[in-house]
């Protein structure tokens, strides 16, 4: 089976599973009758998958260590909330010719606005800062993430430090996992194209990549923009799940959470990072009783992993799969 087909199959499976879980308590299908708590965790897992897979394209595939992912998520969350919450009524009126589909159309619009605004922020951050490498880039992206947060905190129009409340709850399991599948598909497709080879060449050896005619700036900025776009989508989904966003929710610690998922799953392995995002979301919930020991458990997990499997949980699995494809 060709890789294109297997990916499309993945998307289909996701879509069907998600449709079964759309969360109507009176749905006929028994699987659909799960409680809200579990449903929220499943949606959070999907959002985290989008975050981790999109950071992976920047840090894992292109090798640009970024600590500002939560900043782009914030741009997406606030951008989309601005559409549905602040601009809600007039936009709904404008879309009223669509009848019953108007709210959903508004949600799609808000997702697009959130994603595109975040992509724009990614471009603005990426272009100047990608001249830096390694630790320096990490510090600059960390700074940008914090700047975004502080700017939001001081913007009264979006609620300032109090946050933004009353965002309509549009996010469902179907939307989340559908977009997660879309994100995984886009990243996987991009990796197996001229773009992916550019990304990997930049990661492996920037000087050699330049010498082989690979325009390293173009590929680095592309990775940043794509990564930010999906981070923005994740932020938009998050805002319309929780219904209430504050600048504090998108602090540096959130960025670190995503970095941990990427490292745990294996830098550059889309499959590994997806699994890690789901596992860590679940672990987070399982350890909720032991709230104060949670970070200790995370730290121990990371230390053990770095000793036992420095390439990450499933690092290298993509290459192994590809090698198997080539043999057959």
């Amino acid at each position, binding site marked *: 089976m060709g890789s*294109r087909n297997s990916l499309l199959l993945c998307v289909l499976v996701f879509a069907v599973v998600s449709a079964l879980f759309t969360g109507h308590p009176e749905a006929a299908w028994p699987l659909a009758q799960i409680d809200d708590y579990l449903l929220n965790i499943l949606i959070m897992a999907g959002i985290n998958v989008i975050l981790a897979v999109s950071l992976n394209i920047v840090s894992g595939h292109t090798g640009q260590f970024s600590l500002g992912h939560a900043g782009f998520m914030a741009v997406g969350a606030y951008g989309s909330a601005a559409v549905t919450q602040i601009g809600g009524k007039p936009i709904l009126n404008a879309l009223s010719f669509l009848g019953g589909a108007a709210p959903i159309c508004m949600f799609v619009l808000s997702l697009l606005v959130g994603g595109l605004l975040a992509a724009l922020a990614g471009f603005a951050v990426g272009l100047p800062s990608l001249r830096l490498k390694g630790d320096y880039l990490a510090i600059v992206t960390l700074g940008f993430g914090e700047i975004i947060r502080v700017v939001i905190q001081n913007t009264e129009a979006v609620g300032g430090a109090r946050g933004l409340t009353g965002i309509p709850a549009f996010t469902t399991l179907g939307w989340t996992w559908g977009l997660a599948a879309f994100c995984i598909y886009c990243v996987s497709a991009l990796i197996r194209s001229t773009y992916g080879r*550019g990304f990997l060449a930049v990661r492996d050896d920037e000087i050699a990549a330049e010498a082989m005619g690979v325009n390293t700036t173009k590929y680095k900025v592309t990775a940043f923009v794509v990564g930010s776009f999906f981070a923005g989508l994740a932020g938009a989904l998050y805002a319309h799940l929780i219904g209430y966003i504050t600048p504090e929710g998108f602090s540096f610690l959130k960025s670190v959470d995503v970095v941990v998922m990427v490292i745990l799953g294996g830098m550059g392995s889309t499959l590994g990072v997806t699994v890690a995002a789901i596992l860590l979301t679940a672990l987070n919930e399982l350890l909720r009783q032991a709230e104060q020991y949670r970070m200790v458990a995370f730290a121990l997990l990371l230390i053990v992993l770095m000793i036992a499997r420095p390439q990450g949980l499933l690092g290298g699995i993509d*290459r192994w799969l590809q090698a198997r494809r080539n*043999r057959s």
Partner: protein
Amino acid sequence: MKSILELEKVVVRFGGLVAVSAVDFHVGEGELVGLIGPNGAGKTTLFNVITGVYKPTEGAIRFDAQTVDGLSASEITSRGIARTFQNIRLFSSLSVLDNVVAAFNLHLKSGFLGALWRGTQFREQERAVREEALQLLDVFGLKSAAHQPCRSLAYGDQRRLEIVRALATKPRLLLLDEPAAGMNPTEKVELMRLIRFTQERFGPAVLLVEHDMKVVMGICQRIAVLEYGRKIAEGTPGEIQQDRRVIAAYLGEEVVDA
């Protein structure tokens, strides 16, 4: 002979240090030129200036009668200059085949939506580029290793792969930075054959930086000698071997007792 690369009074200064000092130099179309000199003479710096890693402080570099100094390294490569590195710089996490395919990027159409949609045109291009890369590997006897990680290749084969990768950019001038470094005598003989073969088959001009005199004298048509950033001699291998200044640069001058 029409010259493909011309350097005119090129100066490279790093602060107070003059690494390359007013060097005039040219490479003819299809020619095989050697660049030698003692350690620290500025050979690699000159390489880096030609390939756009550094910009010349003064002077001009013309490739194919067009000024190329100041362009980025990738733009210079797209004009037709490719290089290998003194210390091997392969894309270490990629397979042998993907190393070559990555260097084809320059000549491929890369549409963002095309990559996502993966239509017929996209797949046809991907297939064609793999085919072409495999053929290139086949010519250099690396086809059987195509799907191996490039790190698993023997040292000599990694050098060879670097040359294959450079050829994938379809250069008209190929710069080889100490290709014989760390090779044993058998590998060196093999390397000389390889360079000659590359020229016969693909026809690029070759500029070779090398310490190994056997290799340089064995294959170069013309040799330029650098010392302390200056060009002190230029000529055929025979002429260079007789040149007093070159002998002095390498062996020191004779002391005449008073």
